[in-house]
């Protein structure tokens, strides 16, 4: 029983990272109607740069690199819109290309080595459950960012504009809301949040150049688990995925636990609640 409780706690702490990745995922999904496949690549890039420079400067440089990569994605998005491409599928195809390019860049510069740094060696025991201080920091940071985004979306003018642009882009445009600018900004914010997630993973389990796509998928799975409506659901989706993954990792094999996020995504997709547009309703 204590073992199960420990697994569950570990899962909640792990899930906070998925929740953190799910935040920008759901923001992009709602405001642009598309997926930024490069999200996981921003995280890996931040971790790679952060581990090379090290310390606080490394964290700052890592976040800077992730922001720069996300700015490139935002520029690509703006460019595609300018030449008249606005199908979500083409935008996500372009972000897929960026993800591949960033992964290849990381492989070229850093090689296949894993990026991992340890800030704490001791383990705390709370009520008989062992937890690492770093995972508590991860949880606190993720929770803080969730609060910031929630506040931003539901308590500020910017958030109101974003929600308006998400619900009715054409109407928002007519009301003088700069929809394209907001959407571009959403892509850039994905770089910041993805970068923070990457730095947190760097100080916890670590990652390597192949992690990008699976981080994107985990974030996406978390974002859609309870329906892509707002940051709180996305975060809770991340927590649930973390708990299920930790439980299956503790009780079954590694391959099974790696399957869990994928099975969750498949079941949610097959249930047909994602994407809104169904066959019969896809005429404008």
């Amino acid at each position, binding site marked *: 029983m204590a073992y199960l409780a420990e697994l569950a706690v570990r899962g909640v702490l792990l899930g906070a990272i998925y929740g953190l990745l799910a935040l920008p995922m759901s923001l992009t999904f709602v405001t642009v109607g598309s997926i930024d496949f490069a999200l996981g690549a921003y995280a890996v890039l931040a971790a790679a740069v952060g581990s090379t420079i090290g310390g606080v400067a490394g964290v700052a440089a890592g976040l800077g690199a992730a922001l720069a990569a996300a700015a490139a994605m935002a520029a690509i998005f703006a460019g595609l819109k300018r030449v008249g491409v606005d199908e979500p599928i083409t935008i996500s195809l372009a972000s897929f290309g960026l993800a591949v390019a960033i992964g*290849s860049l990381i492989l070229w510069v850093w090689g296949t080595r894993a990026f991992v740094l340890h800030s704490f060696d001791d383990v705390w025991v709370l009520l008989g459950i062992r937890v690492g201080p770093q995972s508590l920091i991860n949880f606190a940071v993720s929770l803080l960012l969730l609060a910031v985004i929630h506040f931003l979306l539901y308590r500020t003018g910017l958030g109101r504009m974003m929600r308006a642009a998400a619900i009715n882009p054409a109407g928002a445009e007519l009301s003088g809301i700069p929809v394209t600018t907001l959407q571009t900004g959403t892509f850039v914010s994905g770089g910041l949040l993805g970068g923070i997630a990457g730095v947190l993973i760097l100080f916890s389990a670590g990652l390597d150049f192949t992690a990008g796509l699976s981080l994107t998928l985990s974030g996406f799975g978390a974002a859609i688990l309870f329906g892509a409506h707002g940051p709180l659901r996305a975060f809770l989706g991340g927590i649930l995925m973390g708990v299920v993954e930790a439980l299956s990792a503790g009780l079954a094999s*590694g*391959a099974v636990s790696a399957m869990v996020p994928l099975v969750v995504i498949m079941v949610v997709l097959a249930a*047909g609640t994602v994407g809104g547009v169904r066959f*019969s309703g896809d005429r404008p």
Partner: protein
Amino acid sequence: MTYWRARTNTLVLLAGAALAGAVAARDAAWLDIAIAIVINALVALSVGLTFGQAGILSAAQGSFAAIGAYTTAILTLKLGWSPWLALPAAISLPAALGYGLARLVARLAPLAVALATLTLSAMVEIVLRSWDDLTGGYVGLAGIPTVLSGHPIAFYALAVGLLAIAVLVYENLMLSRFGRALTTIRADRARAMADGVAVPGLLSAAFALAAAMAGAGGWLYAHYFSYLSPGSLGTELSISVLLMMVVGGARTILGPVAGAVILGVLAQLLPAQEVQGLFYGGALIVILLVARNGLLGLVRREGAL
């Protein structure tokens, strides 16, 4: 004659492949590259069919190729089947899996379907890596029997033959009422349903056909290189063929094949294997920004093809 007049793509392909074969046959290294390009072209053709005609952006074609390759490898290595006997299995297993997946998700929005294929691809990779007894795990399978191992030009001819059959089937599909129904679905799904088209069924069938083509590509790969590991096909190939399709043009039948040739030749000029993704990803973005319908799309707009 009228039969072939309506099927110019197959003829163009055969002529081009014969010319390329004649040039490449002088140099063993180039013949090797040409064979790899034809295998890639077969998988690229499959992604062209799913995206260009059925509107399904598939990130799983490399995984279907991997399934075809592993099927034939396991049947020939562990059960001692002849490679020719294993070919139908290597084609039909990916097709069955593709049909099942498409039936599950074909009614959804395009983005959701794309993510489902990406998820499937990640699942296949985990299975290949962890099912040690059957797939050899990380180590992979070595010593797969080769076919037509005399002169590589014979294998080139075999690969081109399979590719030509795939192009002919694709062309016949597009000329049939099913092809016209696919075109209607892409333009207006509600209209297609009103016309009495069984939309999810038809999309799933097209997806299964594409998966079968990818499986044939995997069969060629396994029996040419005679070695398989989880990294040899799979996600990386899925991404490359997507790019080949975008570069060549998804709507045209031969676009993905042209893309495979162009990128296959250009990739020889790259300084290192690691930068391939950088080049591929960058080219994908540039083509989307500059020539959305691909290079063959440009040609067709000028009225040349």
